[in-house]
């Protein structure tokens, strides 16, 4: 069934309560516009979130939704996806939610390839609890909980997702709505877990964290756009290029290398090694940083395998029959005199034939 939607159809009557200027607004608009463009019935979408600023998201989406527990959204969403493959299930999470308290659920959802679209809003800070360092904050960051500077080594979310063998791994930016929409489209079409890291500006507690990628001056030098089938070059005139050297991705001057050595981006490589190497080009948005789809490969979804097992079992054994099930361990019958008179399944003997002779 197709329907015609506008963004307004996906908006709720709830007042959006993020701080003015928060990057979350832009992402919300991108997602609402994107869903409207699909012309798919609204009731077929479910948004599941954990706890944090970004996790308020479902309240603003006029779809089905659950605002669950800190870190647990992938688990809750898994229960929905496994039992209702007819739905489009989205997880909205943040760097604290997904990578700190919920790290376990995130990696397991990805390795199982549950059909979830996971949007990780990475603002590199705890916003809702008012400004503590997060698992993606840069080392040395001074926050309320790290007045002497953070001594935590940060996660690289893309490397983590690739390590968990996610079948779709991408990164985009809140500000760049066109790029975000492209990635959302590809994620939506992907069968299986799609992990999207979205750099999201928290203008209250971590403003300009992504300035190297969003600033007018800076971005032309730092955005490495990953485009399938194209050699990876960047810079105002493509003067920088990415090559593989000893298994590592390296940035070189385009002019200094044989054009044939420039890495041609191919997200469909089944081995995640090259994608991983690309993810190591940056350890945060502090200099040249790849954006786009790192990996997009096919692997059966968890729910399709589960459904296959159910279908196979029914085909082989027939639909389950409760009366047969409760007799499957063997039975015997007791008559009105209280004597065991006959035995049922499993070849149990009649009373009296007990071989005592």
């Amino acid at each position, binding site marked *: 069934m197709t329907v015609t939607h506008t963004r307004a159809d996906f908006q709720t009557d709830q007042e959006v309560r993020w701080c003015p200027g928060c990057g979350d607004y832009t992402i919300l608009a991108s997602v609402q516009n994107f869903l409207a463009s699909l012309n798919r019935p609204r009731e077929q979408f479910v948004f599941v979130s954990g706890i944090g600023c970004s996790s308020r998201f479902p309240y603003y989406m006029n779809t089905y939704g659950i605002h*669950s527990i800190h870190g647990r959204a992938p*688990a809750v969403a898994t229960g929905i996806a496994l*039992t209702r493959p007819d739905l489009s299930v989205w997880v909205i999470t943040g760097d604290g939610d997904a990578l700190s308290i919920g790290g376990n659920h995130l990696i397991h959802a990805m390795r199982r390839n549950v059909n979830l679209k996971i949007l990780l809003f990475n603002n590199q800070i705890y916003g809702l609890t008012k400004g503590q360092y997060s698992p993606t904050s840069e080392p040395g960051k001074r926050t309320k909980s790290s007045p002497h500077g953070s001594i935590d080594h940060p996660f690289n979310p893309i490397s983590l997702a690739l390590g968990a063998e996610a079948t779709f791994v991408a990164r985009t930016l809140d500000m760049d709505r066109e790029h975000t929409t492209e990635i959302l489209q590809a994620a939506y079409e992907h069968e299986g877990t799609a992990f999207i890291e979205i750099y999201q500006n928290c203008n209250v507690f971590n403003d300009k964290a992504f300035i190297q990628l969003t600033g007018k001056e800076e971005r032309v030098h730092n955005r490495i756009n990953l485009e399938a089938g194209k050699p990876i070059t960047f810079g105002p005139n493509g003067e920088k290029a990415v090559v593989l050297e000893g298994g590592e991705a390296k940035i070189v001057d385009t002019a200094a290398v044989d054009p044939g050595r420039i890495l041609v981006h191919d997200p469909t490589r089944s081995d995640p090694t090259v994608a991983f190497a690309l993810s190591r080009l940056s350890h945060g948005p502090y200099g040249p940083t790849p954006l786009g789809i790192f990996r997009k490969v096919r692997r059966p979804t968890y729910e399709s395998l589960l459904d296959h097992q*159910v279908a196979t079992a029914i085909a082989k054994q027939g639909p389950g029959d409760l009366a047969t099930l409760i*007799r499957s361990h*063997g039975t015997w*019958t007791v008559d009105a005199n209280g004597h065991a008179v006959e035995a049922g399944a499993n*070849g149990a003997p009649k009373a009296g034939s007990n071989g005592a002779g």
Partner: protein
Amino acid sequence: MVIRFAGDSGDGMQVAGARFTAASATFGNDLATLPSFPAEIRAPAGTLPGVSSFQVQIADFDILTAGDAPDCLVAMNPAALKKNLPDLKPGGTVIVNTEAFDERNLAKAGYETNPLEDGSLQSYRLIQVPMESLTKEAVKDTGVSGRDVLRSKNFFALGLLAWLFNRPTEPTIEWCEQKFKNKPEVAAANIAAFKAGYNFGITTDATRVTFEVKPATLPPGTYTNVTGNIALAWGLIAAAQAADLPLFYGTYPITPASDILHELSRHRNFGVKTFQAEDEIAAIGSTIGAAFAGNLAVTGSSGPGIALKSEAISLAFMTELPLVVVNVQRAGPSTGMPTKPEQSDLLFSLYGRHGESPVPVLAIASPSDAFDAAIEAARIALKYMTPVILLSDNHIANGSEPWRLPDVDELPDISVPFATVPNSEKGFLPYLRDFETFSRPWAIPGTPGLEHRIGGLEKEANTGNVSYDPDNHQLMTDSRAWKVATIANDIPPVEVDQAGDEPGDLLILGWGSTFGAIKAAVRRARNAGHAVDHAHLRYLNPFPANLGEVLRRYERILIPELNSGHLLRLVRAEFLIPAIGLNKIAGEPFRIAEIEARIDEILGEPAQVAARR
């Protein structure tokens, strides 16, 4: 007649016990079993911690427990003898595998002299069998070799017991043929050993006296022998059918609940979806998702795992989603004694959550009772849109008893219709309550026009919108509590098994797996002349509406529990009644004699009572 098989955990005592039980069941005996596993999976062979045992009581009357003291003990090695002999009835029969009584094994078990030779077993009927060489001899032409040869010695023991206790042999032989279909040499070896054991019984002087245990007189019907975990799994499948919903079971492996997962995962042809999650929290998280999506959603665990699920149970309570949470209790705290039973999670079930979150709590009384209890827990969860905690324990989970099979066409209809259309002029109000049940509508994703969001934040009454309004929080807190409290009107009143026309001198109030021991103790006490009544609670929250009235009929109330007095506290607090407790926290069920002794303590020796009258 109580028989205990004891040996090294590698000696196959659980298999021998289970086969003996199965043969007895098909013979028509009533029975009850109590397996006991070593705590460590790889405890060193031959040592006391490595001893595994299986106890079964068989009788020709209806029995309620696996029995207290064994009449017959099979000891496969010195450690098994040392650990189990103190429980044996005076004059009981001991069957030993003599070849295991060498110096090394004696030392490992801590024997300074050989008990087979030093006269210490004089007060028992000792049957000495060189089981290893006889088994070797019996299986030599079957094709098994090496270490597999001695593996059949449990079947030798089983064969001997079959003869001693006049058990039918065919079920065991056919079971071996079935079970080892793909390993015919193992089947042949086990059968050969079994027959050899049986024939050893026939031919040797030492064992000429046989015991007769006649078939029990059970109510007419078709029976099977079932453990609590299996009955629970089947009950969940039945509940899903009765609710006309797909069954989703999200869980994480934990002793002693894992068998529920094992059983359910075999039945994909019932449309059952089992999900072995990455941890306990994910297990219940997925279950909450499945509930939202329109399944009969169930999670199961044991105490430590339930602790991890606590936050999520509150979410299910807050969002008002139907969920069954099974807790197969084990001895705690912490890892405690994972293979031993205890009832120490009752207060935790009622109060072990943050915030005001009262959830219904039900308890299973015996292995076969798990079937009905599972259906009832699902009924309450669905009708009242609430998580329900269903308490089992290790004794129920691994114990077995004959179960008179229900007519599955007579299962109650527990289905609850999903919301399909808006329930107000303002559109769909996800927290608009039903007048009668106080429950809210269940609208599942995919239903057009009913899109809504739920979550852990406090919700405005009716609309479900996020609300920080003080009056609303009070109203919603009261509404949720009231909803659960009113379930008391929708459950059967507590029934008293009363000895006479009038209430007796003492009421024993129990819950959970103590059912059998209490029942048996009450029966004995009555035979001895005491007027003792018994009531057993299925519903721990809310209590049945008539409980207070029932309790007030008695001057004396005894509450036996395998904990420090949880129900006792609840009853005292709720009804201001001076009930007294009988409490045991030893990782094992009550012995009938323990309850009987407490009854005598309270009411006096039966003779004195008779004199008073």
